[in-house]
Each structure stands twice: as C-alpha cells, then as structure tokens.
C-alpha cells in the first residue's frame, strides 16, 4: 500500500514538473502585421582613388540613388543630413552616425581610372542597424562611356541584396518614338535605357512601325512594318541595325509577333481571307505551323516563360477575352471572366502572373491576374492605357498612356505590380509600345 502511494506521489510530481518548467521557457509571440514603407538608405558620393575618377564618384552615386528611389521601395536620406562623411573606402563605418539619421542601408564606393583608361568601381553595402556588411564588396570594370551602366549594375546588386529578388536597372526598352500631330504622326523604332537615358533610333520614319518585341537575350527585335503597304514582320539586329523580313505566304497580313523563350520560335497573328489566327514559326528554317483554327479573331499571343503554354486574345465568345492553350495549339481555356474587354496579354517572366489591357465602362486599365485567371487586380485607370510589358524581374510593368483630344500625346508609364509608384518614364518625344529587355550581361 505504501509503495503504491509512493508511486502515485512520484507520478504526480513528475506530471507537475513540466508545467513548472514550461513557465521558464522563452516567451512566444507572433507578429502578423507590419508596415509597408520605403526603406531609408544613404549613398554618399563615391570616393575617388585618383584624380581621373573624381568626376565619376558623384555621378555614379546619383544614378544609384535615382534607380533605388525610383522603385518606390527605397527612400534616400540626402547628403546634407549625413553626420559622418566617407573619406576612405577602407575605413570602418561609424554605424552610430548612420543609425542617428535612421539610414537602414548604407552604400559606400570608390571610383578610379586604371592605366588602360578603364573605369573601376568598387562598392560595399551595410545593414546599419545590425552593424554588418550585406554580402561582400564587389568591383566592376568597364569603359568610361559605360559609367551609367556600371551605376545601374551597382544599384541592381543593392536591390537584390536587400529585397531578395533580381534587379532591373541594367536593362533597355525598345519602343515606338512618335512625333508630329496625331493625324500625321511619324513613327520610328527607338531604344533607350530603362530610365529614359541614351535614346537612339533603329529605323527612319519613312514607314509606320508597330509593336517592337525584344528577343529573350535582348540582341534582336521583332516588329511590324507597313513598308510594303501591308503589315509585315521584320527581325532586326540591335547591334548592327541590320534587318530582314520573315517569310510569309503572299496575300496575307502578319502582325503581333513575339519571341518564344528559346529565341528561335516566333508566334504571330496571320490574317488570311479576312480571318485572323495564330501561327508559330521557326525563325531559322522559316517553317510555320497553325496553332488556332477558328472563324473568330485570334491575336496577341505570348509564351509562358517555360515555353509550354501560350496566352492570347480571342473574341470567340462575342467579346475579346483571354485564353490559354498549349504551345502546340489545341484546346484553349478561357481565363478572363470579368466585365469588359481584355487584350494584349503578356506572361510575366516569373511565370506567376499575366498582365493585360482591359477596357471597361469607357476607361482603359492595366491589370494583372494569376495564370488561371484568378485574383484579377487593376493597377491603373485612364482615357487610354495599353500594351503592358514586364520588367526583367517581374515586379514592374511599363505601358503606353495616351491623353485625350487631337493634341493627345502618347507617353510611357511604369507601375509596380501592387499598383503603387505609378510614374512617367521621361522621353524627349512621344513614345508608345514599349518592350522591356532582359538584364544585360
């Protein structure tokens, strides 16, 4: 009896012990709501290691700041507010001084021109509040003329190390430059840096050009030209500006071309006997295949990044809507079911979203939806918004916005996929139909 009692008491005490121990464990809390605000950072002028690099230090820092602040995810703390000055790239960082002005990230760098006349840019990124360097320092070497690209590359690194996703600053945009009044507008192909700098023209304005599209490597551009009086697809080499027309059957009109992710396959619309369907072509051999065969209008095809599917626009249900089919054609699945008309779908380079133009209740919108058509989200609204194109990291969309009236002017805008940070891309002339390149090597 005594043993039983003793056993029982021991069992009781064992049962009670964990309860006591538990109260001494760590306190657990769950945080589910934070804030969304730009991350404050400081980028003091890069120090120059020699006199030849002196001029570039400030200019490179300014381009980096413009890139980062332009995303809407970062906010620069201006140089005037800095407490400590960076005089040497190697000297230790006074974290307390940067904490005091609430700079959460600090970018320091040094510029020099080596004996061969090459520009050398070194930089480091610091997480001020944890008092650590984010990643290790990096160095870029390039031509002095390419100093802007080097600044973009530094900014891409900063963006990637802080946000965890790829940058998009060292990229270019091909677009249609427009000049002259609306009824007699001259259009020619133009190319520029993503931020509107370094514009150059690829064609003259003798004939109307439309819808340029970059290849997956950014070395070639597909576009539609009315040179012969009928729309015809051309492929242009960006470096040499040489071009050739794609072979198509006589008596047909071809338009809305887009490269597949392999850089060899092209999908496009072809109108024959008044009916438009989607075709694909091997750009090297010229062999083409029909992907749709319907009495309705099928156009604006765009590949998924893995090349297995194509999203396109069709009015087979009565109004233009978006459909997805296999890259080899076959049964198509409708994905857009909202009110209004949908067009110009573009698959995101990350593969998770499809951007589109939507016309509803007399207004145009740029929007995004999941690839199954769910979670449709409209990002913009205006008299005329159209033709979205994705930034290489799938986080930003550029599109054409045209203002109302005979003096209406087309210009390029960009917007974050959350709908924030809508802003105009500065171009010297009117601009439409942008296509964003991948990141440059």
């Amino acid at each position, binding site marked *: 009896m005594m043993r039983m009692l003793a056993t029982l008491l021991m069992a009781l005490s064992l049962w009670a012990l964990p309860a006591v121990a538990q109260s001494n464990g760590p306190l657990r809390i769950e*945080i589910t709501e*934070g804030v969304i605000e730009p991350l404050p950072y400081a980028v003091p002028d890069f120090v120059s290691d020699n006199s030849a690099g002196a001029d570039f230090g400030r200019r490179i820092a300014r381009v980096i700041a413009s890139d980062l602040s332009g995303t809407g995810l970062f906010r620069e703390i201006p140089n005037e507010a800095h407490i400590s000055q960076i005089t040497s790239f190697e000297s230790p960082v006074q974290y307390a001084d940067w904490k005091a002005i609430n700079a959460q990230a600090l970018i320091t760098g040094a510029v020099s021109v080596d004996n061969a006349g090459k520009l050398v840019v070194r930089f480091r990124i610091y997480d001020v509040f944890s008092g650590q360097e984010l990643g290790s320092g990096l160095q870029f070497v390039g031509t002095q003329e390419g100093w802007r690209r080097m600044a973009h590359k530094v900014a891409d690194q900063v963006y990637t190390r802080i*946000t*965890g996703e790829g940058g998009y600053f060292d990229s270019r945009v091909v677009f249609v430059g427009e000049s002259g009044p609306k009824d007699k507008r001259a259009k020619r192909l133009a190319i520029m840096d993503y931020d509107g700098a370094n514009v150059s023209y690829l064609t003259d304005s003798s004939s109307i050009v439309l819808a340029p599209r970059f290849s997956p490597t950014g070395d070639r551009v597909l576009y539609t030209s009315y040179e012969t009086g009928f729309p015809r697809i051309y492929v242009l080499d960006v470096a040499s500006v040489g071009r050739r027309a794609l072979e198509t059957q006589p008596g047909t009109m071809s338009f809305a071309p887009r490269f597949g992710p392999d850089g060899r396959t092209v999908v496009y619309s072809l109108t024959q006997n008044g009916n438009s369907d989607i075709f694909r072509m091997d750009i090297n051999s010229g062999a083409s295949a029909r992907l749709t065969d319907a009495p309705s209008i099928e156009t604006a095809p765009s590949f998924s990044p893995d090349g297995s599917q194509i999203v396109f626009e069709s009015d087979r249900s009565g109004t233009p809507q978006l459909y997805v089919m296999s890259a080899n054609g076959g049964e198509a699945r409708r994905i857009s079911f909202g009110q209004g008309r949908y067009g110009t779908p573009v698959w995101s380079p990350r593969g*998770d979203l499809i951007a589109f133009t939507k016309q509803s209740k007399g207004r145009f919108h740029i929007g995004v939806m999941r690839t199954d058509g769910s979670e449709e*989200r409209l990002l913009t609204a205006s008299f005329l918004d159209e033709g979205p194109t994705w930034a290489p990291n799938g986080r930003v969309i550029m599109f054409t916005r045209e203002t109302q009236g005979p003096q209406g002017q087309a210009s390029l805008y960009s917007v974050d996929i959350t709908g924030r940070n809508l802003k105009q891309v500065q171009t010297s002339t009117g601009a439409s139909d942008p296509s964003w390149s991948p990141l440059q090597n």
Partner: protein
Amino acid sequence: MNTGQIISGAGHLALIGWALIGGVFRSDPLPFEVTEVTAISTEEYAALLARDSAPEAVASVDTPEPPAPGDLAPDLSSAADAPPEVTQPEANDSPPPDAVPDVSQMTPPDPAEVTDAPPVLEVPQEDMAAMVPEVSPRPNPRPAPRVAPEAVAPPEPDVRIDDVANPEVAPDQGAEVVEEPAEATAPEEAATEIVTEAEKLEQAAPSVSMRPKARPARATEAAQEAPKPAPEPSRQKPATDKSAVNDALAAALGGAQQNNDRPSGPPLTSGEKDALRLAVQQCWNVGSLSSDALRTTVVVAVSMGEDGKPNNGSIRMLSASGGGDTAAKQAFEAARRAIIRCGARGFDLPVEKYDSWRDIEMTFNPEKMRIK
C-alpha cells in the same frame, strides 16, 4: 501495515487531490438575502402616519344556503336530435359536346402595322432622378505613402516624424521647474491599404444634390397624445477591467514568488504581450521584401537585457518555412531590423517579470501583408 501511515498517506493524497482539483468542488459563495430599503424624509414619514387607518375588516359574510336534501335533481334528460336530411343531388346528363367551330369562315386578323421608327421614350423628369443621391458605394480609401496596421492621419506640417507622438515642449519663463525644450513629434501618415490608381474614385462627393424634403405634414392629435415611452434607466454594469484583474492576480502571485534572489515572476499578461507585439510590428517593414520573402514565415529568437533592450548579437533565426534560402535570409534580416530598431530605446516590459521575457521567440508571419 501501520495503520497510522495508511491514514497519513490517505490524508496526504486527499490533500494533494484537493489542491490540484479543489477548484472544481469549490462552491459558489453562499447566497445572501437582500432587503430593499427606501430612505424617506421626516415629512414623508409623518404623512404616512397621518394617513387614514386601514378599513375595518368585514366581520360577517353571508354564505349561500346549502341545498335542501329533499330538492329534486334537475332533469337532465334530452331527446336525441333528428338526423339532418341529406338530399342526394340528381345525376345530370352528360353535357352535350361543344359544337366544332366553323373555321372555314374565319378570316385572319389584319397584320398590325409596324414601323421601323423606335418609340419615343419619355425622358424622365430631372428632379425625379435627383431624388436618388449618387453616393459612393464605400468610403473612398485614402491614399498614403505608407501602409500600416492602423491608419494615421497626416501629421502637422512642422512636426518631426517619429515612432511616438510627443507634444512640443517650449521653455516657460515663469515656471519653477525648467523643462527641456523638445520638438513635437508624431507618427508618419499611413493608410491601412494600398490604393491603386484604378481604385481611386475620381470624385467621391455626390454630383447631384438631393431634392429638398417635402414639408412635414401636420402631426395628428393621436400622435400628439401618444405617450412618450419612458427612457429605461441604464443599468450600470460594474466595469471589469480584465487587465487590472490580471495585474492584481499577477501581483499577488508574483509576491508569493519573490523569495528567489533574482527577479522572476508570472507570465506576461495578454496586454503586456500585445504591447510588445505592437512595438515590434511598428518597425517590421516588409515594403522592400521580395514576393518570395513575403511568403516566408521566420521564427527568430532574441535574448533580452533587463533594461528591455534586445541583445543584438543574440538575434538568430530558429526556423523558416514557405520560401527558399534567399527568401528566408531577407525575411530574417527584415525581422532583425525590426527588433533592433524598435528595441533601441528598450521595450516597455515589466522588470519584475524579467524571467518570463528573458528569452523571446518571435514568429514573423507576413501572410496578411502580401497584398494590402
């Protein structure tokens, strides 16, 4: 077997059992009677005494006479009712079949004259349309550059942006205690959701004014006579301040455990935990995180000093779920920044309970923050 030991053992067992589950058997406090007492004034008391004496009780009451035993019982017999006469309806002959209509003589109706002109629709009176106010279906979300769990109104223009709101302190010449002058601070403006251009309403105000209401009709007499329902006296519930009770309990329990030489105490109250949670989430900025990192939940451990400041070197990631390694790293860095930034001035935690918050595990779950 020693009987004394058995009794002692059984007694102890009963005592332990009572201590563990005694609460179950604890009866409610005994009910006590409440007598309502009305306080009255001397005049009222005198008036009560001066009232007429109670009416005398009636001594005799006439009772009905009982029936005499010789009375005849009432005749209860009754004749059966005659059955009602039911007349059977006469069966009618089957109706003669309808004559077949003579269609040979029928002429089709003239086709109606149809004109191509659409009917002229009457335009509804404008003032009828104006009856319906154009009101936006829901309040227009206010755009702000910052998204936070709680909306913050734009601060005054000359106020410095800070995490906490403080009034401006200006030196007062006449004051005995000289207060240090301080700038006014206020939290930055914030909205609770991201407002895209497509969602911004162009004009929130109604574009048509409402038609003025007709003059009210004369109130009827009945309506005037209708008595106003007396307002019910609002019953005041005794305010039970949960946190106050918790605090009192915590203090009582804490007092019992003060014997240890180091500060120790009961677990934090839910209010104290909430305060800590709010303090950290104010600095948890997910605005610059990738969408992968926004799918990643990280559990971060931190050791705290007695002053409420986190030991920055101790912040480490215990686990991450939902994203890749890179995403987990970004998510952890954002969490670490939040703890360091908002902990720089020390979290407001009770020192007497230091043992319960010496080590903290914070789970940062960004699920709600993805698209807002």
